[in-house]
C-alpha cells in the first residue's frame, strides 16, 4: 500500500513539473520571438562566415602537401661511352620506357639489333630543360656508336636522359600527385568528366537539383548507378574539406561550402582543383590523386599526350578507382570506359569516328612497376641528413621539392647485389654463424667527391641501422697512410727508402699500463725501408716512425685529410684506435684519391621547387690541404700494397692493369675488417664486423677486401694513373739506398721529392754492367 502511494506520487510530481517548464518555455518563446530569431540568424551568419574562412584559407593557401622526390644522377650518353646494349635496355626499363613495335609517344622505344629508336620524355633539370626528342641510338662493341636526332638528322654530341626516381619523402599521409594546370589538360578529359559527373557544371551554383533529378532518372532507366547526383563542386568540397561521414548535417555543410566556393571562385579554378584532388587509385601505401599522377600511374605518360580511349578510362575511374581498377578488373574497367565514350558521343562531345577508334583499343595500361620508396634506404638517409641542415622536416615532405642526388643507379644496384653475394659466400666459406656478420660500403667518384652508392646493412634494402653513417668503429691500419704521409711531407728526413726500425715497442700509457703492440705475424722484421713497412702494414715500424715524427703531427694530418672528429694524440692513434664511420673514412681517403686536394663529399647536386625554380646548388669544391708530392709518394706505396702487400689478393679477381691503390685495416682480435682503396674512377670503403663488437674471423684482407674486389671488379673501368707533381723526380737507387744507374743490378727507380734523393753514389755505377752495355750497343 505504501509502495503504491509512493508510486502514484512519483508519477504525478514530474508531470506537474514538466507542465510548468513547458509552459514557461512557451511563454518565453512567445515573448522573445524576435530576439531568438535574431540570435538564430546571427549564429547562422557566423557559421557561414566561419565556413567561408575555412574554404578561402584552404583554397587559397597551400592546397596539397606534395612529397619531395629524389632523383639519381642522370645518365649522359655520348659517342664512345662504354655501355652495352643490354645495359642500355635495362636503363630504359628502369626509366619505365615501353618496348613497342612503333614508338608513337614519349616513353616508348623500339629495339632492332644494336639500334634503338627512342622517344625521350621532356625533363626539367636544375640548370636546363631537356625537351622530348625522337632519337636513333646505335651501339657497337659495347659502346655508344652514335646518337641521331631524327627530327633533323643531326648527330647529337651528348644526350642527358631523364633521371631515375629513386625515392620520395612523404608527409604522414602518402598522397602522390603531379599537379596540372587547367590549360594543360586535354579537352576530351574535361568534356568527358563533365558529361559523366556533372553535366550542368558551367550552369549551377555548386548544387544542382536538375542534376540530382537527371541522375535519378538515368540510373532508374539503366537499372544501375551510372551517374552521381553530386556536382563536381560538391565532390571537391567533400574530398577537400569534409570527412566521408554520411549524415544530413554533413550534406548541408557540403551544400553551403559548395555555394561559397562557387561565389568566391571561377569555374575553371574549381575544376582545376578537382582535377588535382580526385582520388584515382592506390599503389601500396601511396594513394594516387589527381589526373596528372593517374596518367603516369596507369599509362606512364604525361596527361597532355593521352589518347581518347585512355582519357575515357580515367574518367570512368572517378566513380570507383578500386572497383574499376584496370589492372585488377580489366573487363569491368573496359565496360565502364566504353560507357563513358558512349555518353560523350551522345552529348556530341566526341565524334563517332573517334569513338570507333577508341573502342578498337585495349586498355593500354602500362605494367605496374611499384615504386619502392625505401629501395636505397642508406643512401636516402644520407640525402635526408644533408638536407636537414638546410630544410625543415615539413618543407621536405610537403613542398614538392625535386632533389637531384649524385647516386649512380647502376653502380648502387650492382654494388648491392655483389656486396650481398660476397658476404653470403664469406659467411658460408668461413662457417660464420648466420645473421651476425654485418657490413657497410660507401663508393664515390675519385674526382669531385660525389657519393655514388651507400650500403648500410648486409641486406642492403633493409631500412634499419645505417652502418655506413653510424657504425663508428676503430679504423685500425687504415690510419697508417696518414702516418707515412706525415713523414713524407718532411722530405728532408724521410723518403720512400728511409730505413725504419721494426722492433719491439713498450710505452707507458697515461693509465700507467704498458702498451706493447705486436705485428700481425707476431714477428719482428728489423730494419725495413719505409715503403715496405706500409706495404706490409708493420705495426712496430709504424709506431717507431710515428713516435719519431710526433703523434700530434699525425693528428693534424688526419684533420687536413678531412677527419672532423676530435682526435686524441695518443700513441695508440698510430695503429688506428681512432673510431670513424665508413663515410668519414671515405672522406679521409678522398683526399688521397684527389692527390692532396680535399673534396667535400656530396650526395646532392641541386634542389628545385615544385615549379622547377632552383633553390639550392651543392657545388663541387676542392681545397689543397696536403702536399701533392707527399700524397703522390704515399699513393705509390698504396699501389705496392696491392701488388706485394696485404691487398694483393685483389688481383685474383681484378685486372692488374687497374694499378689500384688501397689499404687493409684490421682491429684487435679481428673485431673490424676494413678496406679502403681506389681505381682511376672510383673510391670505395668497406667495413665488416659485428654490431655487438665481438671478434669474428676476418682480417681486412680476408673479409672487407673480398667484398671490395667483387664490387670494384664490376664498376672500375679506368686504371689509376698518378700524376707526378712538378717537384717529383725519379731516381735509380740500389738495394742499400745509394744512387745507382742502369748498370747496377737490382737497382730500382723510385720517386723522390726534389732534393731528397740520395747523393752518395753506389759503387756499382759505371761498373761491369755499363761496360757490357757499351759493348752491345756498339
Amino acid at each position, binding site marked *: 500500500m505504501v509502495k503504491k502511494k509512493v508510486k502514484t506520487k512519483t508519477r504525478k510530481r514530474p508531470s506537474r513539473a514538466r507542465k510548468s517548464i513547458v509552459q514557461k518555455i512557451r511563454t518565453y518563446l512567445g515573448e522573445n520571438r524576435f*530576439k531568438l530569431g*535574431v540570435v538564430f540568424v*546571427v549564429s547562422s*551568419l*557566423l557559421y557561414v*562566415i566561419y565556413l*567561408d*574562412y575555412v574554404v578561402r*584559407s584552404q583554397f*587559397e*593557401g*597551400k592546397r596539397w602537401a606534395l612529397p619531395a622526390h629524389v632523383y639519381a*644522377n642522370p645518365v*649522359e650518353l*655520348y*659517342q664512345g661511352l662504354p655501355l652495352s646494349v643490354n645495359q642500355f635496355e635495362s636503363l630504359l626499363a628502369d626509366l619505365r620506357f615501353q618496348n613497342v613495335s612503333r614508338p608513337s609517344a614519349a616513353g616508348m622505344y623500339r629495339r632492332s639489333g644494336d639500334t634503338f629508336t627512342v622517344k625521350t620524355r621532356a625533363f626539367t633539370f*636544375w*640548370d*636546363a630543360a631537356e625537351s622530348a626528342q625522337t632519337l636513333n641510338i646505335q651501339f657497337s662493341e659495347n659502346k655508344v656508336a652514335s646518337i641521331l636526332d631524327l627530327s633533323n638528322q643531326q648527330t647529337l*654530341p*651528348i644526350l*642527358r636522359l631523364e633521371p631515375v626516381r629513386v625515392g620520395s619523402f612523404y608527409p604522414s599521409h602518402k598522397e602522390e600527385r603531379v599537379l596540372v594546370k587547367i590549360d594543360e589538360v586535354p579537352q576530351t578529359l574535361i568534356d568527358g568528366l563533365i558529361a559523366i559527373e556533372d553535366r550542368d557544371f558551367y550552369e549551377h551554383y555548386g548544387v544542382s537539383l536538375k542534376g540530382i533529378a537527371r541522375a535519378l532518372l538515368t540510373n532508374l532507366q539503366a537499372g544501375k548507378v551510372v551517374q552521381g547526383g553530386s556536382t563536381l563542386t560538391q565532390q571537391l568540397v567533400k574530398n577537400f574539406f569534409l570527412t566521408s561521414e554520411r549524415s544530413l548535417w554533413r550534406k548541408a555543410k557540403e551544400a553551403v561550402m559548395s555555394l561559397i566556393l562557387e561565389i568566391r571562385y571561377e569555374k575553371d579554378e574549381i575544376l582545376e582543383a578537382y582535377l588535382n584532388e580526385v582520388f584515382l587509385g592506390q599503389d601500396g601505401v601511396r594513394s594516387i590523386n589527381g589526373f596528372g599522377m593517374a596518367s603516369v600511374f596507369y599509362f606512364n605518360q604525361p596527361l597532355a599526350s593521352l589518347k581518347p580511349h585512355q582519357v575515357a578510362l580515367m574518367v570512368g575511374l572517378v566513380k570507383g578507382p578500386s572497383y574499376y581498377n584496370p589492372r585488377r578488373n580489366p573487363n569491368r574497367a573496359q565496360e565502364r570506359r566504353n560507357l563513358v565514350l558512349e555518353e560523350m558521343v551522345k552529348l556530341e562531345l566526341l565524334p563517332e569516328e573517334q569513338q570507333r577508334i577508341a573502342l578498337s583499343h585495349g586498355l593500354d595500361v602500362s605494367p605496374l612497376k611499384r615504386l619502392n620508396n625505401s629501395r636505397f634506404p642508406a643512401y636516402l638517409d644520407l640525402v635526408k641528413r*644533408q638536407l636537414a*641542415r*638546410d*630544410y*625543415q622536416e615539413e618543407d621536405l615532405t610537403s*613542398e614538392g621539392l625535386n632533389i637531384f642526388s649524385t647516386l649512380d643507379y647502376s653502380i648502387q644496384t650492382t654494388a648491392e647485389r655483389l656486396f650481398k653475394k660476397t658476404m653470403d659466400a664469406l659467411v658460408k666459406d668461413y662457417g660464420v654463424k648466420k645473421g651476425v656478420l654485418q657490413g657497410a660500403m660507401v663508393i664515390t*667518384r*675519385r*674526382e*669531385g667527391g*660525389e657519393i655514388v652508392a651507400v650500403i648500410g646493412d648486409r641486406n642492403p634494402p633493409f631500412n634499419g641501422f645505417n652502418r655506413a653513417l653510424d657504425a663508428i668503429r676503430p679504423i685500425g691500419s687504415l690510419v697508417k697512410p696518414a702516418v707515412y704521409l706525415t713523414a713524407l711531407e718532411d722530405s728532408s728526413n724521410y723518403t720512400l727508402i728511409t730505413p725504419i726500425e721494426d722492433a719491439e715497442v713498450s710505452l707507458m700509457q697515461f693509465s700507467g699500463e704498458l702498451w706493447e703492440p705486436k705485428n700481425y705475424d707476431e714477428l719482428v722484421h728489423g730494419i725495413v725501408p719505409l715503403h715496405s713497412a706500409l706495404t706490409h702494414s708493420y705495426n712496430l715500424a709504424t709506431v717507431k716512425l710515428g713516435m719519431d715524427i710526433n703523434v700530434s703531427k699525425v693528428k693534424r694530418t688526419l684533420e687536413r685529410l*678531412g*677527419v*672532423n672528429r676530435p682526435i686524441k694524440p695518443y700513441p695508440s692513434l698510430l695503429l688506428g684506435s681512432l673510431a670513424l664511420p665508413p663515410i668519414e673514412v671515405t*672522406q679521409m681517403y678522398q683526399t688521397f684519391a684527389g*692527390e692532396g*686536394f*680535399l673534396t*667535400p*663529399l*656530396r650526395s646532392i*647536386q*641541386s634542389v628545385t621547387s615544385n615549379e622547377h625554380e632552383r633553390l*639550392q*646548388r*651543392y*657545388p*663541387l*669544391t*676542392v*681545397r*689543397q690541404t696536403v702536399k*701533392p708530392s707527399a700524397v703522390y709518394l704515399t699513393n705509390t706505396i698504396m699501389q705496392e700494397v696491392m701488388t706485394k702487400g696485404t691487398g694483393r689478393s685483389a688481383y685474383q679477381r681484378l685486372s692488374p692493369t687497374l694499378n689500384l691503390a688501397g689499404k687493409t685495416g684490421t682491429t684487435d682480435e679481428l673485431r673490424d675488417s676494413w678496406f679502403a682503396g681506389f681505381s*682511376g*674512377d672510383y673510391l670505395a670503403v668497406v667495413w665488416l664486423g659485428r654490431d655487438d663488437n665481438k671478434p669474428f674471423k676476418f682480417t681486412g684482407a680476408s673479409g672487407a677486401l673480398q667484398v671490395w674486389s667483387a664490387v670494384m671488379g664490376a664498376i672500375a673501368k679506368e686504371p689509376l*694513373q698518378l*700524376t707526378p*707533381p712538378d717537384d717529383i723526380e725519379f731516381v735509380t737507387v740500389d738495394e742499400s739506398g745509394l744512387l745507382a744507374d742502369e748498370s747496377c743490378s737490382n737497382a730500382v727507380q723510385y720517386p723522390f721529392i726534389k732534393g731528397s734523393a740520395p747523393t752518395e753514389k753506389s759503387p756499382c755505377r759505371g761498373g761491369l754492367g755499363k761496360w757490357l752495355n757499351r759493348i752491345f750497343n756498339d
Partner: protein
Amino acid sequence: MHVRLKLIWLLGLVVVLSGCAGVSMHNQVPAPVGQGHPSSSASGDEGASQTYPIGDPNEYQQFDISPSASSTGNAAILALLDTARQARQEGRLDVAASTLERAVRIEPRNPVVWHELAWVRFQQKQVRLAVSLAEKSNLLAEQNTRIRVSNWLLISECEEALGNPVGAERAREQASNLQ
C-alpha cells in the same frame, strides 16, 4: 533599446571576424622553402664559397684556351665546354658551372675543364675556390704548358683580388718561366 545595442555589438563582431578571416587567409600562403647556405661538406669548406671583390668580372679576358685547344677528342666534352662558354658570355654563371661539373663527371682528369671551372668561380668572386681549381688543373696539366700558363695567370689575378701582391707576382713569374 537593450536588444538593439546587442545587435549592433554582434554585427560589429561579425565585421571584425570577417576582417580577421581575410587577413588569416593571406597568412596561409606557404613561406618560401628555407634558403640555407649551399654547404654540403662533411668536413666543411667555408673558405671556398666566400666571395671577394674582383671589380667587374667582364673586364677580365680569359687567356687563350679555347675548347678546341683542349686535349680531348671527346665531342661530348667539346660540346659541354662550348655550352659553358656561351652561358658565361650570357652571364649565366651558375649554368656554366653546372655544365662544367657535367664535363668533370665525364672526363675527371681533363685540365681544361677544371681551368674553365676556375674561371667561372673567379667571375662569381669565389676567389679562393678559383685558386684551388686552377691548382688542381695545374696538377692534371702535366706538360700542357699552355694551360699551366693560363692557370698561373688566373692565380695571379686571384691573389691580387685577395690583396696579396707578392703572391700575385710569384704566380706571374711562374707563368713567365713556363713561356
